[in-house]
């Protein structure tokens, strides 16, 4: 069903966990739908220095979470905001059609974390 790359990210997910002192946290999805992701980011000088995730969901949900952390780390915030759901799926070599929507929330999660970061920055200002 899933290709090898997806299975690799699913079975050896990169950057699992929480960041205790995260600069931003994105929460997307909900357990009712079967997919929920928390994305934690650390930002320094406008660059994502660390990205971690916690995910409740199917194989695709976990693999896309893992993949987005790999894609995002080292990117500027602006670059990170341009990452689309499709980019994540492509980077994984494709997802089953039926999984393209519900489980492919990782990009949304990252964007939500960045928004959270920006909101916090604004408050600090």
């Amino acid at each position, binding site marked *: 069903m*899933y290709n090898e790359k997806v*299975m690799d990210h*699913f*079975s050896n*997910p990169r950057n*699992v966990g929480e960041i205790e002192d995260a600069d931003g946290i994105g*929460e997307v999805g909900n*357990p*009712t*739908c*079967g*997919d*929920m*992701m*928390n994305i934690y980011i650390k930002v320094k000088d406008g660059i994502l220095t660390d990205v971690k995730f*916690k*995910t*409740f*969901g*199917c*194989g*695709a*949900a*976990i693999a896309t979470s893992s993949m987005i952390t790999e894609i995002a780390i080292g990117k500027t915030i602006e670059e990170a905001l341009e990452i689309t759901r499709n980019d994540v799926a492509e980077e994984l070599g494709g997802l089953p059609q*039926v*999984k393209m929507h*519900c*489980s492919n929330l990782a990009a949304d999660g990252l964007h939500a974390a960045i928004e959270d970061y920006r909101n916090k920055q604004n408050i600090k200002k």
Partner: protein
Amino acid sequence: MKRIYMDHSATTPVDSLVVDAMLPYFTDKFGNASSLHSFGQEAAQALEQSRQQVANSIGAKPEEIIFTSGGTESDNLAIKGVAYRNSRKGKHIITSTIEHPAVLSTCAYLEKEGFEVTYVAVDSDGIIDTEELEKSIRDDTILISVMHANNEIGTIQPISDISKFAKERGIYLHTDAVQSLGKIAVNVDELGVDLLSISSHKIHGPKGVGALYVRKGTPLQTLAHGGGHERHMRAGTENISGIVGFAKAVALADERIVDDAKHMRHLRDLLINKVMNSIDNAYLVGHPTKRLPNNVNIRFSFIEGESMLLFLDMKGIAISTGSACSSKSLEPSHVLTAIGLKPEDSHGSLRITLGKDNLQEEIDYVAKALVEIVGHLRAMSPIAGKNPSLR
């Protein structure tokens, strides 16, 4: 890698004795049962012997057995067959909320065709509410269809109770016994049914074969038109090798059912106990005792079924889940919803269905694997909390 198959409600390996029984009918006794010559007569004889075997097993007469291409066709034929033929008597059908899609989709189709269907609820264990069922009977009710045992949670329904008021009211009663055959007693008179569906590939027979029992005198509309096969009830050249294999599988199941059921029940209870004792926030789904001897259905909070399934598969273990993410419709199992589970709880359900050849050491292996995998996934879960609860 060792592979452990524990998804016997999805399908079963064909018994090697069944394959042996089938083989001559491919290359040697390959005749068409409608042919008058010796090749054909050989086939016709095999067909009638198989019919006798299947009939015997469920307490029916041979002429009450219609061979079909499987459980789905049997369900379609039973329900549409009775509905179309009796539509002048009435257009109301009663079924349950936890039927197999072969029954539910057929009923949904009939609703579009102008029939009315009442879906009777089940309790939190998955047992049908017989009072509600009785109350839902109307003057124009022509058919009640309630499954003998559920394919997801293994719950066994009180068919013979339902039969009493079906008989009183002169309503035909169909039961889908696809999952119960070979696991618990299936006898058409004890159950008191007029129609009963069974399928070969769930009892170590070949895929693509099934049967519908139709009690003598039950008016049924043919759905497959053509040559006069199966006493004009189901056209199509008979799948002799498949039917012979099905009959052999039935014969073997009859011989072994007592021992096999005992063995599976033992493994089932062992697995349930092991999992319950080693994993927190794990709950048995379905009725604790009125359940198939081979069905384990457990849900684990905070995590999702497909990812459990995939990790188990990587360890060589084949099971199934009620999670939406594993279904083509992206809806959680309608059965789990019907017994009142919230979607987030359905997503975490696993169905483990045992077979006669599963071993105790496999149970140990699976239980261990589950501890590991549930732990791993909970550690990754944003909802498991700070305290991924593993005892």
